[in-house]
């Protein structure tokens, strides 16, 4: 697909061939999008950046009409059946619309939706009871996946787009990013989507596809305190501090997340976590990272909505990228000049050789001695 023109705005229904290949037969009738309450409320930037990225990559997604809250931890902590039935209604709605895949970018929603699907498939009698509880038919036929899995699936296309010449140099090239998975993307292990629950790599792969460098660190799958953000803030500050300190110690320039709860805990509460004058660490959604690598404008990715300001960080990245490109151009020009000088000397030597009488002894020795020296000094 290298020859295809790179379009940033895709039509509603056209799918570039590469994207269609990547999605494979699984795509079926397109992807149902379940934003969940956080993406409509406290994390609009996750929604904005996701929509911008799927549009740029030509992935067709359609929001599930009239979706309801998945119940989050309050649902299943209070009642197991409620924790299954609330998310199941959304799966039933997607099923009724003819979709076979549901994209739930929020890690908590992803976890609840897929846990519900798993419970209905495996627990005795649940499948039979569901239609009565929901008041609508439900056959548990849709599969649930999250933003990391989606972007991982499209990793080759992202890499191709990032490598294709963009108007501006890729600001993420060589930037050190720590992928933070937290709990809900990898636990329980059955819901980790094939990734390793203790040492997951899918988000790291996406970071590398963007031209950035993933960081090896220790807190990838530690809990940020999740649902205690409001009711037990002290725990969140304690847990978040150790996550941020470990990322910084291992050289991360920013932390990348795919969960609105992790984001608000590490972003909104970071002020309380760092009191020793360290430079705050930006917390980015993985969709924002992909958007930046694809050359989408920062405003369209909602990067201005964070508490830890990202404008200076992005400005620095752009300056670094420009300096890098300038340096690359300088090195290339230097290499070209050297090659040209060598070629010129070689031509001169050949000329001298041709001019010298055949069988002459001194003439050929001089240019072959001089060539390596002169090349080095040019």
């Amino acid at each position: 697909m290298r020859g295809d023109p790179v379009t940033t705005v895709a039509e509603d229904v056209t799918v570039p061939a590469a994207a269609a290949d990547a999605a494979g037969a699984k795509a079926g009738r397109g992807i149902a999008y379940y934003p969940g309450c956080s993406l409509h409320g406290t994390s609009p930037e996750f929604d904005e950046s996701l929509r911008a990225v799927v549009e740029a990559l030509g992935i067709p997604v359609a929001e599930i009409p009239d979706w309801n809250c998945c119940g989050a931890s309050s649902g299943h902590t209070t009642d197991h059946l409620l924790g299954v039935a609330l998310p199941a209604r959304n799966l039933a709605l997607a099923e009724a619309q003819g979709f076979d895949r549901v994209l739930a970018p929020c890690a908590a929603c992803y976890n609840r939706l897929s846990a519900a699907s798993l419970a209905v498939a495996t627990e005795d009698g649940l499948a039979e009871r569901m239609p009565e509880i929901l008041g609508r038919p439900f056959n548990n036929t849709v599969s649930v996946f999250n933003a990391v899995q989606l972007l991982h699936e499209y990793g080759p296309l992202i890499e191709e787009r990032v490598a294709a010449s963009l108007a501006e140099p890729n600001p993420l090239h060589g930037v050190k990013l720590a992928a933070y998975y937290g709990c809900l993307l990898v636990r329980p292990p059955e819901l980790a989507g094939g990734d390793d629950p203790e040492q997951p790599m899918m988000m790291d792969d996406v970071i590398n596809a963007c031209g950035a460098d993933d960081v090896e660190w220790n807190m990838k799958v530690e809990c940020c305190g999740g649902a205690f953000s409001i009711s037990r803030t002290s725990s969140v500050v304690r847990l978040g501090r150790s996550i941020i300190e470990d990322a910084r110690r291992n050289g991360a320039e920013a932390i990348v997340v795919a969960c609105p709860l992790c984001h608000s805990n590490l972003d909104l509460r970071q002020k309380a976590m760092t009191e020793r004058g360290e430079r705050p660490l930006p917390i980015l959604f993985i969709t924002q990272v992909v958007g930046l690598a694809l050359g989408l404008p920062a405003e369209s990715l909602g990067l201005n909505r964070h508490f830890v300001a990202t404008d200076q960080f992005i400005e620095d990245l752009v300056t670094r990228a420009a300096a890098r490109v300038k340096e690359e151009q300088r090195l290339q020009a230097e290499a070209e000049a050297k090659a040209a000088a060598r070629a010129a000397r070689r031509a001169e030597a050949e000329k001298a050789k041709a001019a010298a009488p055949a069988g002459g002894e001194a003439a050929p020795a001089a240019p072959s001695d001089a060539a390596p020296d002169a090349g080095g000094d040019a």
Partner: protein
Amino acid sequence: MTSSTPHLATEIEAATGINPATCYQCGKCSAGCPMASESDLRPHQVMRRVTYGTREQALQDETIWLCLTCETCSARCPNACDPARIIDAVREIAIESGQANLPRNIGAFHKAFLEQIRTNGRLHEMGLVMDYKLKTGDLMKDVTNAPAMFTRGKLNLRADKIDGINEVRRIFEQCGVTP
């Protein structure tokens, strides 16, 4: 415990399919628990208490409410005992039997959260926080963050109510939950 009340471990096994007595106390769950340092009982101790402690002790324990459901314990358990699921089941039984001894803030949060869903079908953060403040009396909590959240477009003043709200209420009724 009267003879008509089943043993807690039996009740848990009926609800989850897991016999908590299969826990052999290796402590791997507690080693990874993010809340272990703040809890009276660590996960492996909760497993032991629901098996051998009295019913009241287990149900009235505050520790079960400090569980974040991060599921690190269950993911690492070498004997598939699923402590997170067991703790969830104990919380459910504690609520049903009226013995739940949950910290006021955490209880208020779950209650306010579920009320939001039952009322609108979706979570309205502003409504949740207001309701939570009224329930806990902690009126000044996070007040300083509100303006900054508002200017960043992270707080909606109006709730987003779904058309199928009656379906959501039906689910609550069918599950026997009244927030």
